[in-house]
């Protein structure tokens, strides 16, 4: 910036950047062109455009989109429903809990806060087996299925995402002046009015951050839904659908690749729309988390 750089240095740097970008994007490009080919062309020459056509791409996609092992629209719908419901519940309940924990300096709030922080180190593997049996037993006990249901999965995401959500929100709420709440209280606001009408709207930027972090995790998560929903359950998410699909079409790349393409399109579209927010949100989350 302050030192003058030689033009050659700048050019070399640009070339390096382009080469790396080509390497990073290469799998996506390969995925796209080979999704539009027949098997013979895929195996004989995967790196060339030969044999790839838009018409073939459509044919391949049509062949997989309604496949009983994939059911793209169903699994897309379930994934979207689960992700959106989990994100809304995490944001609202997370903010409510974080606000109470932050604004009450009691022994209890400190204990709850540190339990949340400590729990972030717990790997999913250590709780997953008892979790499934607990959910199965509770579901049988009260007569509402907790496994193989959207509601059960959303409840589980509320539990697993809660700690990180509260941690990040808590850091933000600390920065909101308490005098604001005192003023509202003097003006006759009840605590719940203060929260929903004054504090919650102020949390918009940080709620965006946690929504992005949680959204990427929940949308792409495989292990938790596969344990709770099972491979052959009524509800399938996209990662489960892909896993099941590949299992039934071993090495049939003209089926697997279009399916993978379909699976990544929603995420890519969202990224292209909200690129800036997503990248900023990821950084915020990492630096605070």
């Amino acid at each position, binding site marked *: *910036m*302050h030192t003058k*750089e030689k033009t050659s240095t700048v050019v070399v*740097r640009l070339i*390096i*950047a382009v080469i*790396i*970008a080509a390497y*990073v994007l290469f*799998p996506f490009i*390969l*995925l796209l062109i080979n999704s539009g080919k027949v098997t013979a062309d*895929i*195996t004989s*020459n995967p*790196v060339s455009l030969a044999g790839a056509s838009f018409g073939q791409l459509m044919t391949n996609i049509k062949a997989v989109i309604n496949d009983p092992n994939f059911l793209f629209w169903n699994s897309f719908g379930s994934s979207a429903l689960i992700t959106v419901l989990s994100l809304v519940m995490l944001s609202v*309940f997370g903010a*409510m*809990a974080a*606000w109470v924990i932050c604004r009450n300096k009691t022994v209890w709030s400190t204990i709850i806060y540190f339990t949340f922080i400590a*729990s972030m180190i*717990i*790997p999913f*593997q*250590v*709780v*997953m*087996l*008892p*979790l499934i049996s*607990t959910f199965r037993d509770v579901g049988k*006990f*009260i*007569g*509402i299925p907790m496994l193989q249901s959207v509601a059960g999965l959303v409840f*589980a995401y*509320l*539990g*697993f995402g809660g*700690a990180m959500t509260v941690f990040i929100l808590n850091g933000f709420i600390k920065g909101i002046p308490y005098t604001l709440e005192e003023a509202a209280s003097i003006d006759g606001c009840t605590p*719940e009015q203060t*929260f929903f009408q004054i504090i919650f709207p102020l949390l918009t930027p940080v709620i965006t951050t946690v929504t992005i972090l949680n959204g990427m995790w929940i949308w*792409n998560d*495989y*292990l938790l839904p596969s344990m709770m929903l099972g491979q052959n359950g009524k509800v399938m998410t*996209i990662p489960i659908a*892909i*896993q099941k699909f*590949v299992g039934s079409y071993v090495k049939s*790349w003209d089926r*697997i690749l279009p399916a*993978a393409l379909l*699976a*990544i399109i929603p*995420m890519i579209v969202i*990224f292209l729309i909200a690129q800036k927010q997503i*990248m900023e949100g*990821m950084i915020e989350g*990492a*630096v605070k988390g």
Partner: protein
Amino acid sequence: MSTFSTGRKVASFASLILGLVLAIVGLALSITKAGDLILFTIPISGKATPVILGRGTMFICGIILFFVGLYLFPTLKYHRAIINIIFLFPLLFAFAVTVIIPLVLGIGYSFTDWDGIKLTGFVGLSNYLRMFNQKSFLWSILLTFLFVVFNMILVNLVAFLLALLCTSRIKALGFFRAAYFLPNLIGGIVLGYIWQFIFSNVVTKFTGTYSMLSDTKTAFIAVIIVYIWQYAGYIMLIYITGLNTIPGDVLEASAIDGANPTQTLFNIKLPMIAPTITICTFLTLTSAFKQFDVNLALTNGKGSVQFLGEYIANGTEMLALNIYTTAVINNDYALGQAKAVLFFIILAAVSIIQVRISNKKEVEL
């Protein structure tokens, strides 16, 4: 006190009582195994179809109604405390049911002969002894540590170099940042299959030999490559943020003093982003330890290897996948749970040690 209308008082007490009754009846129906409550039957096309009020629905509605009553409770003094309880309850309840209870149960189950559904008795440490006699499990531990070490170094190195590139003067900076970050958006399962295609169909075209995935050593390298490809862009973003916090006048001063770019890098930039390095090391360490999706989709743990005088078939299986296979595929829940508890202990110990070391280093720098 006349602060509260009679209507509110009535509503509050009515909800509290009705809520409690509903919840208790729901629970009682569950405990006595009486089943759901049949309200009445209506004949639909000649058949008597019962209209059912589910015991679970009753219980949940009861609890919600109870909280509504609590919310309306005519008190000024305790209103804040009531709001605190209502606000904390949903998240804490979900957290307790999904994390705390399973964790406690899980640690307990690891000392029993639990089979995923029921248990018949305590077996002491026999699950733990059993897993240390499994050579394939010992291999998984070793492999996981190797993977973590390789990745911690390589991901941080690659990400830092990318960050240097992306903070220098360059055209289309935004495009390059977004492109490098892109793989991070895609889930490990889908990624794993895309790369499986590349390793077994594309790379072989260039090397003209067998697929990298068919040999244990090269398959392990393949997992590392995919992991770096996926994760480096994310870590790069954090390094970029770190590098951008270095004040411009510091860099200016070093330039005036005649520092060359290498000196600036090692004597100014690296020490100043020490906190960022700590964060990134922590993130790469914990996420590499927990690696599961790519491992499952790319190699599914397969690969033969000779270890401690025995041939084992799961040469590329890391800890997280080993636990899953033990419990879910081989149906040995107690053993899988014991392995998971050990996994938890290792992860906790390593994270704590890493944070300690980094904090010391940060102070020294």
